[in-house]
Structures are given as structure tokens and as C-alpha cells.
């Protein structure tokens, strides 16, 4: 079979260098966007009254940029470097590698253009509209083919645990992306989710939580299991723990999503399931963290002088803190306080700045001299970067943790007469201002660290050789005809198992799976898909999960147009539409939200953070004119408000003919529009005229009936009013 022939090949490091530079560039862009929106909360003037610079449109740009552009390119940097070496093979196709790189950067640019323009699906971390979603799918398949092609051509039979994490990430992200983004296109950059209300929320947070799991956790764990041992120069503390870590993470994570929807209109069994699985995640997460830290056994003295190890130690510690806090936040009683507050923002940033950021920095500092084949320009500057980023992160986290606790406690405070102690929402916002400034300073330090990092990368790159040395690697090919013997032990030389039990415990079967990456991949998909189906399907299939309410009717054509404006401006980034059945919430906002109220909401707009008050029962609270004035300049009515102004909505004409497409699409999704389908623009104009008349009556300006603002007012005045109406005809 094998006559001692050795294959000769070279690793493709050019592609790794490309991804590395992209990681830095997009990281800086994404963090600057974050700094800007952080400052906008402390100083609303920074919205500049320019629509595409307002908080609601830039916040998704920040999250998408740091997750998919910064962390995404960091993942690809590490995966392309380590996969080739762990498998002793060049990437499957240089062309696919290049398509992957340029395609991904093009998607990022498309996101950076469309999000500020207000093209959004309104689902967190899945905001990008359908043409970009299709592009993401194509590029992700290119990446998957390239990765699995490399695995097929590998010259090392055993797949190292890092590769397992990569495989799980690639297949799970594909499943999540496709199912959460199923939508009906209305315009070239506008679509409606095929799911509505409770079901849409369930799909979204199944996706949302697993985007954290399989984009920000498992790929980075793979990187940890490769780059930490490399940087330390000794193998991982316990390879056994890493196997257990892998399978428990894959099995448990996929269930945890519903903890984002505690006390909402989601059925309680679902949110309890999510909570229980989240608590179980403590085990593998801490197992993994301890495994990472103990890899440093006997090398702790080197941490003092090696900035790379410092970055890794803080990264793994942050992983431990974030994954301790996550399950704690998933406990309902803790969640009741933390949900909708800055506590969640603080939690996310511990993970993102600490775990993803620091692991990326450590990895890149380790890669720089190897990829650019020279010395790192300055180790001292790396030290400076480390301390700037560490202090920045600590300042950010402490400020924003206090902000979250402060506001959460103020919301639920009652005075001795049994009334809300702070009935005025903006009072709780004002309290946060010093902490928002603290966060801005922390963020600035972190960005300053990035600049030092960039300078170090640039100077190291400048010192590169004229021509990179590409050493020829030789390795024996795997014999094609080889099959892992059914009865073998785990490794050659092990006792041949005799009984079924010893065959099982001999782990030969696991070895066979690893030798058959396709089967291994199928097992991972089974673990992920089965769990998802069992958790999600009941809300679609069992009627009692979403009881209908007879008086709840579809939005009128004008209200629907207003809802799309609400989505365009990103209002859901700061305003929830979900009142929890907690006394302080029903006191403050009104009757708690019911699942049946959202059956026509494609997509759902429950929100996840209350920077401003909840709007679920906004309808009828204020006169139309109040909304017009408030949207034009919030500070004219609420002097301390930090909401951006939307004066452009009083100027820009409403596109009435387009409303027909919106209504048609909704009807296609099963929303019972009835007669409205025939002349939606006509119905919208009639309602707009009525609202325009009311505004004048209340003392406002004339001529607003053909402007965007009337649609917005129509939508806001409708919110949450249906359950107060008598039910005339029962909805089927």
C-alpha cells in the first residue's frame, strides 16, 4: 500500500496573512462604531440629527462588525493556519480560500452600507437583509467545502480536538443562519420573516444564543486548544477533558436560547427548559476554562514576561467569568432583574472584549513573527496594549454593571404607599449618565490599545523579508484503502478488545468516527438538529402554546407601513414591546403581553434592552400631536431624553404605492387582510388624512398627511390596543 512515498507540499500562509490584516481593520472599525454609539447615549447630540448616524441604525452595525467582521476574520485566521498544520495538508483549494476571503469582506462592506441606510430584518445579529443572507450562505458553503476538502486530503488520520470544534461551528452556524433567516422578500432590501410573534421570537433566540455559542465560543475554543499549547510549548492539560468539553458543549448549548425570553409571552415550559440547560452549561464551560488555565502548569513564571501568555490567561479567565455569569443570568429570578438592563450589555462585553478580543490578540501576537518571518516589532508595545485593553475592559465592565443594577433596581422600586418610586422613566436614565461616561472612557482605552496593536502589526509587516520563505513539508499520505478496523483499540499497540464492553470502552468506535469525518459531522448535526426540533417544534405544532385572541386584528395598511419605518429606524434597539407579568411592569406600562397579541407580527419586535420605555401598550397614551412633536425633537417634550430626533420623518413623503406590496406579502404569509388587499394605498391615504386632520385639530402643523410621520403615529397609536376592544367576530 504505502511504499514509503512522502508527499511534498507547502502551507498556504498568504491567505492567513490576509485574514489577519482584515481582523485588525474591521476590529478597529467595529470598536469605533461601538465607541460612537456608547457616546451617543451619554451625549445625544452625537446623533447629529442625521438619519444614518442615529443610534438605532448604528447599533446593529457595531454588533455585526465586531461579531462577524472582527471575530469572524479572527476565526478564519486561526482556522486557516491551524487546520493546514494539524492535518498536514495545504488548504483544499487556493481559489476557494480567495473566494472565501474576498466574499466575506464584500459581505462586511455590504453590511456597513445597508445597515446605516435602514435595511434590516430587525432580528439581533441577523439584521442583514435577504440578498446579503444569500451571499453569506454561498460564502459559508465555500468555506465548508474548503475545510472538508482539506480534511478529506489530510495526511494525519486523527483529528485533533480543535478540528472538531471547527466542524461543529461550521455546520451549526449554517443550520442556524438558514432557519432564522427564512423570509419572504418584499423589495430588493426588505423582507418579512415567515414566522410570527412567539414563534419568530423563539427562532430568533434559538439563533441568537447559538450565534454566541457557535460563532463566539466553539470556534474560539478550537483556537484555544491549538494556540495556547503552541504558545506555551506543552500539550493541553487534559485531552480527555477536552473530549468531554466538546460533546457536552455541543449537546447542551443548542437548548439554551429560550433563557433570552424569560417572563415573556413564550410558553413557560420552553423558558424553563432553556434555563435548565443553561445551568448545566456551567459544567463544560468551567471544565474548558480549567483545562485552559491548567495548560499553564509549570509555565506560570513565563506569564510575567510574555504578553502573549498574559492575553491568553485573561481571555480564558474572561471565558470563565462570562460562562459563570451566563447560567446565573438564565435563572429566572436573576433574569427578572437583569433583563432589559445594561447588565446584559456588561455580560456580553466581558465575553466579547475579554474572551474573543484577548484570545484574538494573543493569537495574532503569536502569529505575527511566524507569518511575516521576522521579529515582532516591539514586545513592550504588546505589553502596553495588554494593560490598556485590561484597564479599558475593567472600567467598561464595572461602569456598565453598576448601570444595569442601578436601573434594574430603580424600575422595580416601590415607595411606602405601594406606588412606583420612580414612575418617570427618564429619571432612571439620568442616573446612568456618570456610568455611561465611565464606559466611554473604558472603551476609549480599549480602542487606544487597538491603535498600539495596529502600529505593532504595521511595523512588523514592514520588516518582512522581500520573498517569504515557504518551506516544503513532507508527510506520508494516508493509504486510500485503509479502514479503521472495527475491533481495534484506540491506538495501535493497544489490546484488541474481546468483549462488546471492552470494544466500547476501548474507544475504537470514537477513533473510527474521527477517521470518518463525514460520519463525525453527521453525528454533530444530529445532536444539534434533534435538540432544536424537540425544543422548537411544539410551539408550531401544539395549539395551546399560542392561544389566539379574538379581538386581535392585523395592522391596517398605514400601520403596517409605520411598523416598517419603526423597523427601518431600529426603534427596537432601545424600546421593547413586551410587558412581563411582574407587578412593577404592569404598574408602569399596563396589562402584561399575551402570546395571542403577536400572531400577525412578522417579524416580532419584543426587543432586548430598554434604553427607553416599553411601547407594548403605547397606543392611546398620548395624543397624536405629542408623538409628532416627540419624534421631531424628543427634548422639546422630555428635556432629559437621550432619544435621537427624527425630524426627517416630518419632511420625507410616505411611499403610498409601495404599501400594496407590503400588504400583499403579509397576506401571502397568512395574515387575513381580507378586502384591504384590493386597495391598500387607498385605505392608507384615508387613515392618513384622518390622522393629519387630528394633528391640526390638536394645534399641530397642517400638511403632514402624506409624510412618513403619519404612518409612524398610526402604528404607535395602535400598539397594544387590540385586547381592549370587544371581540365581534372570532378569528378562525
Amino acid at each position, binding site marked *: 500500500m504505502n511504499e*514509503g512515498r*512522502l508527499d511534498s507540499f507547502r502551507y498556504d500562509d498568504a491567505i492567513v496573512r490576509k485574514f489577519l490584516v482584515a481582523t485588525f481593520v474591521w476590529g478597529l472599525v467595529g470598536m469605533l462604531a461601538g465607541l460612537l454609539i456608547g457616546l451617543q447615549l451619554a451625549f445625544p447630540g452625537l446623533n447629529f440629527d442625521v438619519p444614518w448616524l442615529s443610534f438605532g441604525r448604528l447599533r446593529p452595525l457595531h454588533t455585526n462588525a465586531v461579531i462577524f467582521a472582527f471575530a469572524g476574520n479572527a476565526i478564519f485566521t486561526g482556522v486557516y493556519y491551524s487546520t493546514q498544520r494539524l492535518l498536514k495538508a495545504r488548504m483544499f483549494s487556493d481559489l476557494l480560500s480567495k473566494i472565501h476571503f474576498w466574499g466575506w469582506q464584500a459581505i462586511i462592506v455590504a453590511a456597513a452600507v445597508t445597515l446605516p441606510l435602514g435595511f434590516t430584518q430587525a432580528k439581533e445579529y441577523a439584521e442583514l437583509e435577504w440578498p446579503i443572507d444569500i451571499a453569506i450562505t454561498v460564502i459559508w458553503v465555500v468555506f465548508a467545502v474548503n475545510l472538508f476538502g482539506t480534511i478529506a486530503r489530510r495526511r494525519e488520520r486523527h483529528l485533533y480536538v480543535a478540528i472538531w470544534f471547527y466542524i461543529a461551528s461550521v455546520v451549526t452556524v449554517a443550520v442556524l443562519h438558514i432557519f432564522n433567516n427564512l423570509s419572504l422578500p418584499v423589495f430588493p432590501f426588505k423582507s418579512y420573516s415567515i414566522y410570527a410573534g412567539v414563534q419568530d421570537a423563539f427562532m430568533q433566540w434559538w439563533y441568537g444564543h447559538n450565534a454566541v455559542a457557535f460563532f463566539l465560543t466553539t470556534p474560539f475554543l478550537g483556537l484555544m486548544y491549538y494556540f495556547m499549547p*503552541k504558545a506555551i510549548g506543552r500539550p*493541553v492539560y487534559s485531552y480527555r477533558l477536552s473530549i468531554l468539553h466538546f460533546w457536552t458543549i455541543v449537546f447542551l448549548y443548542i437548548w439554551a436560547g429560550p433563557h433570552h425570553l424569560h417572563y415573556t409571552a413564550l410558553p413557560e415550559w420552553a423558558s424553563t427548559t432553556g434555563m435548565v440547560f443553561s445551568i448545566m452549561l456551567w459544567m463544560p464551560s468551567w471544565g474548558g476554562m480549567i483545562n485552559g488555565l491548567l495548560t499553564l502548569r509549570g509555565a506560570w513564571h513565563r506569564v510575567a514576561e510574555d504578553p502573549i501568555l498574559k492575553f491568553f490567561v485573561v481571555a480564558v479567565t474572561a471565558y470563565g467569568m462570562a460562562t459563570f455569569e451566563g447560567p446565573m443570568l438564565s435563572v429566572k429570578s436573576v433574569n427578572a432583574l437583569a433583563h432589559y438592563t445594561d447588565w446584559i450589555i456588561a455580560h456580553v462585553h466581558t465575553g466579547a472584549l475579554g474572551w474573543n478580543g484577548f484570545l484574538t490578540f494573543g493569537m495574532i501576537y503569536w502569529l505575527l513573527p511566524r507569518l511575516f518571518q521576522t521579529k515582532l516589532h516591539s514586545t513592550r508595545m504588546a505589553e502596553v496594549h495588554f494593560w490598556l485593553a485590561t484597564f479599558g475592559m475593567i472600567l467598561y465592565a464595572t461602569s456598565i454593571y453598576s448601570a444595569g443594577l442601578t436601573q434594574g433596581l430603580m424600575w422595580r422600586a416601590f415607595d411606602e404607599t405601594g406606588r412606583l418610586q420612580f414612575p418617570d422613566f427618564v429619571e432612571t436614565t439620568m442616573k446612568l449618565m456618570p456610568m455611561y461616561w465611565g464606559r466611554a472612557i473604558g472603551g476609549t482605552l480599549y480602542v487606544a490599545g487597538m491603535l498600539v496593536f495596529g502600529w505593532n502589526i504595521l511595523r512588523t509587516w514592514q520588516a518582512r523579508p522581500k520573498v517569504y520563505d515557504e518551506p516544503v513539508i513532507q508527510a506520508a499520505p494516508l493509504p486510500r484503502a485503509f479502514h479503521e478496523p472495527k475491533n481495534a483499540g484506540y491506538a495501535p499497540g493497544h489490546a484488541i478488545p474481546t468483549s462488546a464492553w471492552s470494544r466500547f470502552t*476501548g*474507544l475504537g468506535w470514537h477513533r473510527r468516527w474521527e477517521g470518518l469525518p463525514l460520519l463525525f459531522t453527521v453525528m454533530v448535526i444530529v445532536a444539534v438538529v434533534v435538540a432544536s426540533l424537540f425544543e422548537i417544534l411544539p410551539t408550531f405544532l401544539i395549539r*395551546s402554546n399560542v392561544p389566539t385572541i379574538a379581538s386581535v386584528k392585523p395592522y391596517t395598511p398605514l400601520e403596517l407601513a409605520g411598523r416598517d419605518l419603526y423597523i427601518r429606524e431600529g426603534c427596537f434597539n432601545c424600546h421593547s414591546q413586551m410587558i412581563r407579568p411582574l407587578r412593577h411592569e404592569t404598574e408602569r406600562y399596563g396589562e402584561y403581553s399575551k402570546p395571542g397579541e403577536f400572531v400577525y407580527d412578522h417579524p416580532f419586535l419584543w426587543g432586548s434592552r430598554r434604553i427607553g420605555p416599553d411601547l407594548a401598550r403605547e397606543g392611546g397614551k398620548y395624543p397624536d400631536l405629542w408623538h409628532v412633536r416627540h419624534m421631531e425633537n424628543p427634548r422639546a417634550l422630555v428635556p432629559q431624553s437621550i432619544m435621537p430626533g427624527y425630524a426627517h420623518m416630518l419632511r420625507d413623503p410616505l411611499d403610498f404605492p409601495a404599501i400594496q406590496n407590503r400588504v400583499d406579502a403579509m397576506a401571502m404569509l397568512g395574515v387575513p387582510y381580507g378586502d384591504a388587499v384590493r386597495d391598500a394605498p387607498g385605505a392608507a391615504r384615508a387613515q392618513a388624512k384622518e390622522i393629519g386632520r387630528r394633528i391640526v385639530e390638536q394645534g399641530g402643523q397642517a400638511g403632514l398627511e402624506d409624510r412618513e410621520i403619519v404612518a409612524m403615529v398610526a402604528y404607535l397609536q395602535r400598539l397594544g390596543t387590540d385586547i381592549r376592544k370587544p371581540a365581534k367576530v372570532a378569528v378562525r
Partner: protein
Amino acid sequence: MKLSEIMSHAGLSGYAEVALVLFLLAFVAVAIATFRPGASRAMDEASRLPFDDESANLPRPGDPR
């Protein structure tokens, strides 16, 4: 009869306990198999894979000559 009606009346709640037992068994199986003393040599070998890249052009022990 619609699928949702069939599912609503099928009385599937007991399946949760079945799933719990299956999941627990799978976990115990992986745990036993992984932590069994006999696997330690293979585990050590696997854990050293990241260090195998630079020496890949040297014949490895066991390679046929």
C-alpha cells in the same frame, strides 16, 4: 385532521423523561470511555498533535522505510 391537532392530542409529555435518560446515558458513556485508564496513551498522543507540524518532513517512528 391537521398535524397540529394530532400533535396536540398525542400526549407526548412523557417523552421528556425518556429523552432525559437517553441523554444522561450518552453522557455517562462518553465519560466512561474517555476517562478509562486504558485510553491514556492514545490521549497523550492526540494531545501532542499540534507539535507535529514542523517535524512533518522527518520520518516518524513507525513509518515504513
